[in-house]
């Protein structure tokens, strides 16, 4: 770690987005899992996540019932802290929260 001379003055953070370096996923004791079959791509989990840890991927998905979507929502497990808000807000109960440790 840098000594006092090497730190930017005023405690400025000079690299935008450097917060992503902190792997807060280690704080998680429960894990949300999105069921891609039930997910209706409403984006509510993405909007509610307090940590920006729901990823909106430009990747298509077709359900077993034949419904096609252009996007897929996935959890960024490096940063998700396991708060469960996504599961609570999901209108179709497509997110399940399971313990990390068995």
């Amino acid at each position, binding site marked *: *770690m*840098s*000594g*006092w001379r090497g*730190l*930017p*003055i*005023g*405690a*400025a*953070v*000079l690299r*935008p987005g450097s917060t992503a370096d902190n792997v807060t996923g280690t704080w998680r004791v429960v894990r949300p899992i999105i069921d891609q079959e039930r997910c209706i791509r409403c984006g509510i989990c993405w909007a509610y996540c307090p940590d920006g840890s729901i990823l909106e991927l430009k990747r298509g998905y077709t359900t077993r019932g034949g419904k096609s979507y252009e996007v897929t929502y996935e959890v960024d497990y490096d940063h998700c802290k396991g708060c469960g808000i996504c599961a609570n807000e999901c209108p179709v109960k497509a997110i399940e929260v399971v313990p990390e440790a068995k």
Partner: protein
Amino acid sequence: MLAELQRGARERVVSRRAGLTTNYAVAHAVKAVDVDVVAVYPITPQTTIVEKIAEFIHGGELRAELIHVESEHSALSAAVGAAAAGARTFTATSSQGLEYMHEVLHIASGLRLPIVMAVPTRALSAPISIHNDYSDIMNARDTGWAILIASTAQEAYDTVIQAYRIAEHPDVQLPVMMAYDGYLMSHTLEPVELYHEEHVRGFVPRRDRRNVLDVRSPITLGAFATPDNYYEFKYQQEVALRNVEGVLREVEADFAARFGASYGPVEAYRLEDADYALVTYGGAATGNARMAVDMARERGIRAGLLRVRLYRPFPSAPIVAALAGVKAFAVIDRAIAYGSPAPGPLYKDVATALYMEGLTVPGISVVHGIGQRAMYVEDFYGVIRMLAEGAGTGKVLFLGLRE
């Protein structure tokens, strides 16, 4: 030779000699350095500074954003935002206003923002007083701001100009407070030599600062620091503040060359051969003590005066050097450090500075002019007499108090 050079410099730079209150002199300095943003909330006796600045902006003499805020807490917060975005920023307050700013004082210095603030000092409530003493500034002395205390309107004008050079210096990058007596200076009209503004702007050119908010190259200010780093940031601040004394000397050397005036971190008057010294700050205490020194000299007492101009960082070396040779000294404080080992805040600093050099010069702690209780030249002469009659270490005096 130097004096002649300085006179020559002055003739070139002075645009006019005007009768101004110190508050108006400060407003003229703010205009001369071409500030970008002014955020101030009115409070007596500061208000006439911002009234004058508003007039300058309205009349098109100063192109600056005057931000109307709803409190002093907001005034300094707005100044913090403006300075963080790289603007040359000014604010001013007194008394309760400075108290209300208190938490933001630490934020401004912690973020290393070169804000300049004028503080015509005023007593604190309760009971309510609009009159002068230095209780307000003394509560802000450990906030990481550089603090300069002026003793004349001319010096206040010059110091605001110097303050921007000091605050924006890469070895400093800290906010600077410029204090002076409320009423006794803020509302006293006296001669001030104003400079041609192009000379002032040449003296304080805009320079690129480190770590400024800029959408083209984003950074984060005001982030969290864990125990791993917090201490290092605070130590950086302490080092930067201690750099101020050297930077002040450097800035003043250039100021003297261009404007023919300099003051130094401390100012001595008739101290070279003095047996007894008065130590003061501000206008009324210093001016009256100076007259008292002359009175004492006429009566055969070798008295001298040391005025502390740079209060934070504390210029220990010149103060210790000035007092090392006297038989006794008295520090005249304009505030009470309630319940402290000595009642005078500056006295405590002077005593500590001497002790750290292993010196034990007899000194007394004098409190005077609380809530603008009248201070007369004779009062200061009385203190010199007391020193000459042998009053020494440990003596405490609440001057002008009714028994």
